[in-house]
């Protein structure tokens, strides 16, 4: 078992384990970084570790760091500790300040803008309300990316699903169907 992880669970480690989502990341990334590092150093550490489109976004400049489901930008010259980033904090890194979300359901469309750190589950609740789907029936529907069969997990930040400068996503609200076909 990972020693750093065990130490972090005791809350006395210098190193933090952070759940990072952001532009160009394929999945939730766990960043292990010294608590005295700055927010800029966190961005660079993630870019170095994952490379690819996230690194390209970092090189292009303009990345903003926020907490999950929050819009307020974290000051990047601050240390993680000063910024309030603790062990197992959830942060989002993206160039888009807002993401335009469109949801289609039964021939109707609803649209609004959300911070990229917004969880898919929160957008789903907004869509359920817009289309008057009650709380119980809501568990029988899912958001699916338009033109695909991809249904992002409710914990996924919507910023993971779009890149700058598009900053937009289209979902269909679809029913979850039972699996059958002869037993």
């Amino acid at each position, binding site marked *: 078992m990972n020693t750093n992880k065990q130490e972090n669970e005791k809350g006395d480690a210098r190193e933090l384990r952070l*759940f990072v989502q952001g532009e160009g990341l394929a999945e*939730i990334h766990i960043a292990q970084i010294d608590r005295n590092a700055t927010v800029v150093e966190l961005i660079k550490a993630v870019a170095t570790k994952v490379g690819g489109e996230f690194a390209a976004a970092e090189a292009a400049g303009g990345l903003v760091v926020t907490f999950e489901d929050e819009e307020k930008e974290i000051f990047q010259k601050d240390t993680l500790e000063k910024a309030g980033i603790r062990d*197992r904090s959830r942060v989002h890194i993206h160039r888009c300040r807002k993401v335009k979300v469109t949801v289609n359901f039964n021939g109707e469309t609803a649209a609004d803008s959300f911070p990229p750190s917004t969880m898919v589950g929160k957008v789903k609740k907004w869509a359920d309300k817009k289309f008057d789907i009650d709380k119980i*029936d809501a*568990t*029988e529907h899912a958001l699916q990316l338009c033109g695909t069969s991809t249904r992002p*997990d409710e914990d996924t930040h919507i910023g993971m699903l779009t890149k700058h400068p598009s900053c937009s996503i289209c979902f269909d609200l679809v029913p*979850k169907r039972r699996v059958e*076909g002869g037993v």
Partner: protein
Amino acid sequence: MASRPDEATFLAHVEAGPFENGVDRGRWRLVSINWPHAVLAISAAERADAPFEYAFRFELSNYPAQLPTAQPWDLSTNGPLEFTKWPGGIDRVKYAFNPGFKEGTCLYLPCDRLAIEGHDAWRTQHPEMIWIAASDITLYLRIIYDLLHSKDYKALRGA
């Protein structure tokens, strides 16, 4: 230290963000590994006289190139869960947790190795549940978690 590539890949996946995120959210936890088996527990929505989680024993040979297969597991006896204690429902849940299918040795889901045999139509009917070589165990776990938090999940099958 894993001695087999499939076990090494599985261990890497349970240390990675998607799995750890689920652990941190209280969605699931790793109970034990005795390769090629791993027991994982998945939380369930609160229902009267029903457990707060269900355990499943996964068979993971040649993971992730080969699909996993899983069956409900009793942690107290370290054996298959009595059919009456399986999750119950009337629609999606009843179909997925069906002890009458293959004598209760797997779940009736497109991501299950045993269940997808002879069900090629599922690839087009339920593409979101199809296991691909790039999948990791959280695909299977998320599908179960979703069922155990659905409107259709009532309580124990035998209740």
